[in-house]
């Protein structure tokens, strides 16, 4: 039930290997698709010659942009065509599709496709994107969004001012389950696509838009997903298999290789943030002045606009700051596409804010944790950037204190050249979409003698959404067993599994539908028992009234009860165009991390000793799964701090494999001590709020702070490379 460590419904199938992923899909008579990609970051696309490819045994056809049906509405500026039209804008952009009888034949034929390119000047440095004469990525210029936040009076000449210039690398979601999808043509000119996606309805809309279909002609079903972390918000190969299946009247499957996966899904936005904090001698922050530049890559303006919003709105951290002046630009480049990744801009902002807070702590001679406590937002304060009233609960001080009071690991024996460092960071992010994005979620509960089945299209990425919905349904039905099968576009709209939102959004919809069904059931039972409705209870899945009891089957017989519900998110709006002020967020999540590292200062190698974290989670529906999010996200954040960066040269990725793009292993990881700060979110189902993103927000900044503490190096860039972490051979650490 609520608050219990109920095992997730898919766990045993995943352990025994019977759980099926999108990669395992099959259909009778299916063909295989392989993608031909641009090796250039920016080029005019010339003739595509399939002569040699056609000679491969099993070759079926090649498709390029000329085979894509006419759209029903014009392409928006910056929107990626499913196959390049005249120009390629990033290395790896799909230019043609090859379909063959076997996967090997498809790959072999794809390698034999000859494509003519006329290279164009490459815009690879986001800092030059808005300069006069910069190569234009799109006809409308390189600016995706400019955002200006201006609140309060920026006093000139605060007693203390510190400034930092913070550079952010390119983190890849790095999910293990490669992109894969199967499209099966329907009899009506439509198509069913089975794919691993964070949002079947968004995939449906995108596929229909790109292929000139009506939405009802496209069905999308969830297939098992091997992780997402934001990287499956936009379609990648879904429209390609649909196009081929419709063109050929046969089922078509595609599975990416790892290097394709790296260039296809969105990465965390790299960028540059310059942040100044003005403060009193006592460390009270008076103002924040920030300049933000994000590299959006070649396409996809919507997520980039929203991520810029997040970076700017969280550049005041969870602090009481009376005045802010923040300006941000997000630009197009010929680099890989940036977009959603766990934390959605908040980790970048957190790195800048927390690193600058540490500069301030050093300047005013205050303990970094104490500086954060003194400036922490409290209920009744105004959010520093949007000026929104922060209602309770807002346990910022609580997460600071809970994290700071976690026991430190024992000090090790002295080792020559190894120094220990401790770093602390505080993070904040909105839960739910925000900035006026329309937001709702639907669910239906169907009850029969065997129990309840919940129909929802919410995506299970591995984060446990379906388990949480199962627990919510069972609790709202007072112990009647419920199951939540993986859904499809037939199961209503749930929105994306992102923004830490499904527990709250789909959870609320499930709760409402379940409550409706529960009321219907009690009415039936009251008739059955011939008692007043108020006397009927559901206890442990049984119907009871004073002196009476009946099973579900006895009351329902062969009847079925059903109820659908739509839950609408609290309204938000885009901020004022001049000041950014307004109700831009529905609610926030707060989190603190403390990292302890050992740094070999001669080699610059960093070992994580302990990560401690406290998180504002509302009331936990399933504490074990919440801790799972906290630990996993913290280790991802550690990866971003010290190793994860998809490096590019002139737009060409240099390390697009797991040999070269390193992610933490079990040996890199360490104990993560978690504290759940549980204060009921009044608007969330059973007091819950979101939990998925905060673990990735302040973990990175805390690790970098710990390395600074150990080495004394400024570390203005994430990830910190070994050469950044080398320090002079120091005298033995006096703290040991």
């Amino acid at each position, binding site marked *: 039930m609520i608050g219990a*460590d109920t*095992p*997730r419904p*898919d*766990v*045993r*199938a*995943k*352990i*025994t*290997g*019977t*759980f*099926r*992923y999108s*990669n*395992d899909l099959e259909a009778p008579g299916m063909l295989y698709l392989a993608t031909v990609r641009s090796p250039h970051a920016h080029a005019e696309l010339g003739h595509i010659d399939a002569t040699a490819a056609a000679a491969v045994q099993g070759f079926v056809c090649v498709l390029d942009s000329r085979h894509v049906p006419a759209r029903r509405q014009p392409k928006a500026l910056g929107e990626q065509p499913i196959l390049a039209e005249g120009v390629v804008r990033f290395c790896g952009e799909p230019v043609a599709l090859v379909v063959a009888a076997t996967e090997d034949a498809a790959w072999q034929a794809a390698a034999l496709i000859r494509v003519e390119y006329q290279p164009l000047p490459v815009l690879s440095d986001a800092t030059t994107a808005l300069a006069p004469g910069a190569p234009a990525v799109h006809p409308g210029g390189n600016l995706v969004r400019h955002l200006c936040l201006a609140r309060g009076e920026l006093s000139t000449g605060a007693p203390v001012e510190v400034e930092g210039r913070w550079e952010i690398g390119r983190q890849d*979601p*790095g*999910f*293990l*389950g*490669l992109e894969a999808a199967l499209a099966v043509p329907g009899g009506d000119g439509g198509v069913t696509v089975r794919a691993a996606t964070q949002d079947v309805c968004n995939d449906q809309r995108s596929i229909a838009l790109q292929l000139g279909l009506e939405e009802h002609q496209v069905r999308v079903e969830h297939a098992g*997903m*091997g*992780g997402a*972390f934001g990287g499956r918000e936009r379609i990648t190969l879904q429209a390609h298999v649909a196009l081929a299946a419709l063109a050929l009247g046969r089922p078509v499957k595609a*599975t990416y*290789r*790892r290097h394709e996966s790296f260039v296809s899904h969105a990465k965390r936005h790299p960028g540059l943030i310059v942040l100044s904090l003005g403060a009193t001698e006592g460390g009270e922050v008076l103002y924040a002045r920030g300049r933000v530049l994000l590299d959006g890559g070649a396409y996809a303006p919507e997520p980039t606009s929203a991520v810029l919003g997040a970076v700017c709105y969280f550049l005041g951290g969870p602090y009481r700051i009376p005045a802010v002046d923040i300006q941000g630009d997000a630009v197009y480049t010929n680099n890989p596409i940036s977009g959603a990744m766990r934390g959605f801009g908040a980790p970048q902002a957190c790195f800048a804010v927390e690193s600058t807070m540490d500069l301030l702590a050093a300047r005013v001679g205050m303990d970094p944790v104490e500086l954060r406590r003194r400036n922490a937002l409290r209920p009744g304060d105004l959010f520093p950037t949007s000026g929104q009233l922060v209602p309770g609960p807002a346990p910022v001080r609580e997460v600071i204190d809970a994290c700071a009071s976690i026991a430190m690991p024992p000090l090790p024996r002295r080792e020559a050249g190894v120094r220990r460092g401790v770093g602390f960071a505080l993070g904040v992010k909105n839960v739910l979409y925000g900035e006026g994005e329309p937001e709702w979620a639907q669910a239906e509960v169907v009850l029969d003698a065997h129990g309840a089945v919940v129909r929802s299209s919410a995506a299970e*990425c*591995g*984060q*446990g959404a379906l388990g949480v919905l199962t627990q919510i349904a069972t609790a709202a039905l007072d112990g009647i067993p419920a199951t939540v099968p993986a859904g499809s576009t037939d199961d209503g709209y749930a929105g994306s599994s992102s923004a830490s939102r499904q527990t709250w959004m789909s959870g609320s919809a499930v709760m409402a539908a379940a409550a409706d069904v529960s009321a219907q059931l009690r009415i039936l039972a009251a008739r059955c028992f011939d008692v007043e409705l108020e006397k009927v209870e559901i206890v442990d899945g049984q119907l009871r009234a004073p002196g009476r009891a009946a099973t579900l089957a006895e009351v329902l017989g062969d009847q079925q009860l059903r109820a659908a519900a739509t839950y609408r998110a609290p309204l938000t709006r885009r901020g004022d165009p001049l000041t950014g002020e307004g109700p831009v967020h529905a609610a926030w999540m707060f989190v603190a991390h403390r990292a302890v590292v050992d740094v070999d200062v001669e080699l610059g190698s960093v070992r994580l000793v302990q990560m401690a974290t406290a998180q504002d989670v509302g009331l936990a529906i399933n504490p*074990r*799964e919440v*801790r*799972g999010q906290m*630990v*996993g*996200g*913290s*280790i*991802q954040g550690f990866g971003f701090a010290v190793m994860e960066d998809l490096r590019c040269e002139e737009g060409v990725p240099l390390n697009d*494999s*797991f*040999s070269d793009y390193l*992610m*933490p*292993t*079990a*040996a*890199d*990881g360490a*104990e*993560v001590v978690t504290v759940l700060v549980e204060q009921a979110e009044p608007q969330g189902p059973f007091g819950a709020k979101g939990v998925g993103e905060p673990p990735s927000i302040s973990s990175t900044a805390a690790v970098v702070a710990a390395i600074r503490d150990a080495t004394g190096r400024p570390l203005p860039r994430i990830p910190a490379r070994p050469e950044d972490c080398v320090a002079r051979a120091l005298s033995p650490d006096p703290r040991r």
Partner: protein
Amino acid sequence: MEIEAVVNGVAMTLQCSMGTNLLCALRDAGVLSPKTACEEGRCGACSVLNDGAVVYSCLLPALACHGAAITTVEAGVAADLTEALVARGAVQCGFCTPGFVVTIEALLARYAARPLDDATVRAALSGNLCRCTGYEGLVAATLDVHLERTTVSS
């Protein structure tokens, strides 16, 4: 071409060509628990037992496995390990899980009569990537089962 191998105790004929790795041959034969993820021996999602030794099946030519006994989680997962993985919350997306199970069982077999500590487990599991869990549940479940098995047997 084809090879004969005993897969999870059943004699099977696996189709392959010169370049086919064991992973593809197994998956083509419907043994789907080993996963394709990096294709270059870096992530361990394709780990299987080859005559009792853990191998990355993506690196092993299928032709080299003629006559071999191949074991995957389809052969069955010990109840104690299953329950420990459940109890420790060691599974999220699950894509890496079958590979981890193979690796963990081999480690537990090597340490059946020896003490096992956190650092040893972490080193032994470092050839398998997990992007979701941060490894803590996997390490803890391994130590739980080791303790249970060594306590029972001593």
